[in-house]
């Protein structure tokens, strides 16, 4: 007990990461460990993320919970950290091949595929859609996009009008959508790689009097879930930072305390709709961590 855990998240802007941090804190408290949060001062700054990894190496925490801003760039640094004897668990985003304690996250490809299918079915298998991508090069963004594309292939009557990056951001989502609205008089559905850009897009649509366009996204932060409740968003594929944080912390701590732990925990994501949304309306701080065993099955 009393271990020090360094937990990395990518920015202080997206509530998804607040969910991660809340989960980590709650579980650490429960298991008697101390958390130190590391977030780059500039959102998603790769080189800064690397420096923070290097600096954390100096403080020799007992455990590092790591999500890459960019896996290619950060892999060598993380490998050196592991070589120097610091146990590292990879969570939220896949971070390439390295001797991690474990990976805890979700299947982004599947989330993308599922939510796209859900939208296409909602549209009756035909119509015009646009995609708001995430940050290029991030594992989550790329995998989700792959999932969207796979679903698209199965629906020949769904037409992809445009696929533009909105970088998981709200303002960009709004602006990109505003412009797409001008170009395309008929848009039936929007698939966003994350809640923030979906919410921005939904605002743009509403302002243009096209509130009836179905918007789906991935994440399920309370704000977006509220929008599902109000009909602003159609549905969300759950990418649950809080759960990821909890489970990652539990597995990591148990692993360094000597318990045998699974190497790979993939938390399934539900499709959040008006029908089932209430569970996700609860603020992160008031949620209770699930047990890792629920997902890891031991």
């Amino acid at each position: 007990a009393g271990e020090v855990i360094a937990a990395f998240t990518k920015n202080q802007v997206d509530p998804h990461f607040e969910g991660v941090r809340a989960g980590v804190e709650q579980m650490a408290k429960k298991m008697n460990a101390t958390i130190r949060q590391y977030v780059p001062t500039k959102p998603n700054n790769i080189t800064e993320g690397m420096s923070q990894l290097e600096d954390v190496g100096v403080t020799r925490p007992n455990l590092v919970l790591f999500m890459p801003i960019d896996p290619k760039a950060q892999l060598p640094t993380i490998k050196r950290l592991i070589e120097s004897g610091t146990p590292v668990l990879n969570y939220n985003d896949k971070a390439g091949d390295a001797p991690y304690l474990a990976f805890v996250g979700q299947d982004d490809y599947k989330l993308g595929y599922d939510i796209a299918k859900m939208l296409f079915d909602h549209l009756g298998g035909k119509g015009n859609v646009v995609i708001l991508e995430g940050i290029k090069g991030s594992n989550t963004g790329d995998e989700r996009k792959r999932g969207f594309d796979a679903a698209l292939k199965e629906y020949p009557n769904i037409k992809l009008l445009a696929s533009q990056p909105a970088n998981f951001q709200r303002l960009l989502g709004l602006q990109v959508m505003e412009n797409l609205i001008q170009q395309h008089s008929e848009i039936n559905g929007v698939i966003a790689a994350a809640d923030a850009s979906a919410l921005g897009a939904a605002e743009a649509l509403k302002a243009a009097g096209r509130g009836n366009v179905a918007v789906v996204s991935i994440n399920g932060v309370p704000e977006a879930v509220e929008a599902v409740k109000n009909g602003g968003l159609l549905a969300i594929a759950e990418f649950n930072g809080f759960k990821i944080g909890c489970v990652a912390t539990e597995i990591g701590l148990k692993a360094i305390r000597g318990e045998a732990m699974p190497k790979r925990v993939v938390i399934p994501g539900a499709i959040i709709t008006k029908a089932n949304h209430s569970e996700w309306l609860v603020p992160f701080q008031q949620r209770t961590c699930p047990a890792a065993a629920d997902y890891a099955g031991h």
Partner: protein
Amino acid sequence: MTTMDSPAPVIRRPQQLAPGTVAVVVRLGLIACIAVLLSSLSPTFATTDNLLNILRQASLLFLVASGLTLVIIAGGLDLSIGANLTLCACLSAAAIKATSQPTAGIAVALGCGVLVGLTNGVLINRVKIPPFLATFGMLWVAQGIAYWFMAGQVVYGFSPAFRFFGSGFWLGVPVPIWVMLVTGACGVIFLSRTTIGREVYLMGANEAAAVLSGIPVARRRTLLYMVSGLMAGLAALIYVARLNAAEPGIGEPLLLPAIAAVLVGGTSLFGGSGGLFRTLLGATILTLIVNALNLLNVSATWHPFVTGAIVVLAVLADAAVNRGARR
């Protein structure tokens, strides 16, 4: 070369347009050209909807850039506007949520903006930190406070009355465009028809001479940074009302576009010349270009490149117009 001891023989030059007028005409011409080109290429361009869309996007950019324009004319620079906007947005959104009073939010946003501006002014006047560094430092401080205050959360969901400022229409025109027109008109009147407005140009053209002409330069400068902050606060309100949410990442990405809008508009970074109407044109040009690329189905990856090219072309055009007039 700078001009040396300068002309005496009083020879009336042929009636010629002032460089400022030329700059405006060049930009209006550019806008006209793009518009004509686009309406022939894309049927959707010339629709009222699209034009209002362009103007609405431009209006948000203009609001952020307007206060900056004054600061730049006076020979300064404000890199903190983006982060200031963020902070104002977060604090005011929280205030509205807490009190369910839009007026509380308005007061907080404007107050916070002015306060950050005041701090800039004090750092520059009293502590004599160069504007670049002082406002760059404030950028970090304001951003940090916003992060700390929000603690990773988003404040969202506002009353329709408040949201009217961002997404409402009046007489068929989006409210932000009205806000742009009103603030723009106030600014133009301020610059041309008030003592302080005239002083802004003198300060920018030669600060030492302005001081020795009895212009209270330090106080004026503080005032201008406060106005810049005020406009960041106003823009914050519009953004919050438009996005229906406040998060600590909204303002920073607006900084460079705002600077670009001022410069593309033709306000000189040397200080002493420029104006708000030009910034309005600059904001319009930048927005128009992105809209054009979209309508022409050019990939979004081209946007920064084209924007950069426009900035360079704008300086080159100005240089060609007042060839030799300036250092």
